């Protein structure tokens, strides 16, 4: 993992974290990504707390320091407190997390560690909690979370020890 950035950071062009990172080397792509991420978070059919559970699980499993310490305000407002976030760890099956979030954690782990059609039991659990449209959105969300964690890991990660930062939920 890169302990410091491997790519220079251009002069700041925006106020959000991404615009003040090496991603600003590709402004058109950054704008398109920010729009995509905003649609995902603010115009979604899956509640923000559920997507945040998947995002934070990905952050823990992939070991992305910046992703692990970010919180989106909308998810917090929906009840995903720090106490709940602490439960998104290995051993989450034994915690008091709601069943809906445990199903998302199982699905996220499968996506990250052994991608393929989930087994019958997990498919049934997903269908009990989510519509097909929601499953598609959730799957796309995990794909984006993983991909952008890896960008941070490959090109310049922010080291451990950062404080938790609550930032506005992305919007298009």
């Amino acid at each position: 993992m890169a302990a410091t950035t491997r790519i220079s950071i251009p002069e700041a062009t925006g106020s959000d974290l991404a615009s003040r990172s090496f991603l600003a080397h590709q402004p058109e792509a950054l704008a398109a990504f920010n729009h995509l991420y905003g649609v995902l978070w603010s115009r979604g059919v899956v509640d923000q707390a559920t997507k945040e559970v998947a995002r934070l699980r990905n952050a823990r499993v992939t070991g992305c320091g910046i992703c692990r310490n970010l919180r989106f305000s909308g998810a917090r407002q929906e009840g995903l407190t720090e106490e709940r976030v602490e439960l998104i760890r290995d051993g989450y099956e034994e915690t008091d997390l709601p069943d809906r979030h445990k199903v998302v954690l199982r699905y996220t782990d499968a996506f990250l560690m052994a991608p393929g059609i989930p087994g019958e039991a997990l498919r049934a659990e997903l269908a009990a909690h989510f519509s097909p449209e929601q499953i598609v959105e959730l799957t796309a969300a995990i794909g984006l979370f993983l991909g952008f964690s890896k960008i941070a890991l490959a090109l310049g990660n922010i080291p451990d020890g950062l404080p938790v930062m609550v930032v506005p939920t992305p919007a298009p």
Partner: protein
Amino acid sequence: MSWVAPRATFEEAFGLRPELYGAWRRFHDLFGQRRLVPPIILELCRLRVAQQLGCRGELARRTREALQEGLTEAKIAALSRFETSPQFDAAERACLRFASKWVFDVHEIRDDEAAALVAVLGEPGTVALAEALALFDGFCRFRLMLGIGEDGPDPASGRGV
């Protein structure tokens, strides 16, 4: 065949969330249309990611930009031997080395490997390739999780097989 949307292609399955799919498509298509990464390198990296994940749907696709630039099936057939095959030059090897570690060993990318990539693509090109790899990896997995197989022709820029 997708278990979420039986008989759906990638576009049809993702299209269950049309606004999200449209925004994803605009982001995804930039890399080829704007040539943010040389088309043959971009295509080889996409196929290398698909190869590592065993994603037949992506392996069966070719992008028009890469074919127009002269990418051959012989070269694609040698992809798993990119380190030693004479089909590949040093620049392509540097990019494929990076793409190969991306899928399962992203923590193992070394400083010298990242520097070699920057020497080939420059900093903007390296950022673009990383963003493209993020999409290739994430959405090969999307296909695999939802059980989406091979599609027809790519609606934006390629051909299906």
